[in-house]
C-alpha cells in the first residue's frame, strides 16, 4: 500500500516497527525437463520469516484464508497438489476456548504432479501459477498476498 498521508507516518512509526508485513520467499525453480506423455513433478519451496505463520491449506476455521497454489497456464496438465501438513499452534491472540490453528511456519514445500500432454509442443515453455497466503504474527494479521510462480519447462 502507498503512504499518502505523511503526517500519520510518525504516529504509526513506533508501533509499525514491530508490525511489518512479512514477505514469503519462494526459491527459484530449476528448469524442468519433461517428456511428452510422461509425468513431471514441480516442488515449490517457500519460507516465512521467523515469528510469522500462514494458514495451512486446511485452516482450522472456515473464515481463515488457506495457503493455495493455483497453476494458471503452461504446457503441463496438473494432476495433484500436495500441501505441507499444517502444524497445530496456539497464539497469544486466541481466546481460551479457541482451537489451535493449523499453520505453516519457516520453510515448507508444495509438490505438484503434472502430466505432459502427448501432443505438447517441443521446446521451452513457461508454466505459471500463483501462491496465495495470508500471514499473521502474535499480535497482528496481514492482508492476503499472491506470489507469482514461474517454471521454465523444456519439453522433448
Amino acid at each position, binding site marked *: 500500500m502507498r503512504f*499518502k498521508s505523511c503526517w500519520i507516518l510518525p504516529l504509526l512509526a513506533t*508501533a509499525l*516497527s514491530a508490525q511489518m508485513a512479512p514477505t514469503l520467499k519462494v526459491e527459484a525453480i530449476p528448469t524442468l525437463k519433461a517428456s511428452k506423455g510422461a509425468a513431471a513433478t514441480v516442488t515449490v519451496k517457500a519460507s516465512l520469516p521467523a*515469528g510469522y505463520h500462514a494458514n495451512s491449506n486446511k485452516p482450522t476455521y472456515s473464515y481463515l484464508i488457506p495457503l493455495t497454489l493455483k497453476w494458471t497456464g503452461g504446457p503441463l496438465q496438473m494432476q495433484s497438489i500436495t500441501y505441507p501438513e499444517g502444524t497445530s499452534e496456539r497464539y497469544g*491472540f*486466541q481466546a481460551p476456548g479457541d482451537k489451535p490453528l493449523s499453520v505453516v511456519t519457516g520453510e515448507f514445500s508444495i509438490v505438484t504432479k503434472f502430466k505432459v500432454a502427448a501432443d505438447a509442443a517441443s521446446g521451452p515453455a513457461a508454466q505459471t501459477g500463483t501462491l496465495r497466503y495470508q500471514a499473521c504474527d*502474535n499480535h497482528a*494479521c496481514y492482508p492476503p498476498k499472491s506470489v507469482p510462480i514461474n517454471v521454465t519447462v523444456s519439453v522433448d
Partner: protein
Amino acid sequence: MKSAQYFFRLVAIVLAAFGAGTFVWTYVHHEPPAKAAVKEGKDRKKAPDFELKDANGKAVRLSDYRGKVVLLDFWATWCGPCNIEIPWFTEFQRKYKDRGFEVLGVSMDDGDNAWKVISPFIAEKKINYRIVLGNDQTGDQYGGVEALPTTFVIDRDGRIASVHVGLSGKKEFEDAIQKLLDSPATGNGA
C-alpha cells in the same frame, strides 16, 4: 579533554548497542508495540474524512460523528487478533454510547462478495456498532493500514488521539476512551 571524548564515545556505543538490541529483540520475538499514549490536544492531527458504505448500502462519513469520541477500527473477518478486540468494542459501544461515544468498524475484507462474509460474521459476533466496507484508498488515507487490527481513537473534535497497531490491551482502549469522554469538544478540529 580526552576522558570527555572517551566518555561520549562510550555513551554512543552503549546507546547504539541498546538500539540494535531492542531492534533485534522486537523483530525476533515480536513483542507487542509500545502502549499507545493519548496525545495532548495540541499534538493531535485531524482524522481524514471518508465516505464508505454499510451493509445496507448507506453512505457513512467519519465527519457524521463530529462531536463524539470515535473508536475507528480497521479489521477483517480473517484476522484472529481482531476477533479478540471485537467483544471489547461491543462492550464499549454499549457502555459509553450514551456519553457520546461510537465505534465504527472498517472491514478490510476484499472481493465482490465481501458482505456475504461480513454480514454473518456481524450476526455471529453480535456486533452492535456500525460496520462499513473499507478499501485501499481508505487505508492509504490513514497512512497505509496493513497490520490488522489497527485502531484509531478520535476525540470530539475529529482529531486522532491515539493509534493502536496490532492486538492492544482492553484497558489501554478504555483509558483512552474515558479520558476523551471527560474532555469537551474545543472547536479546534479544523
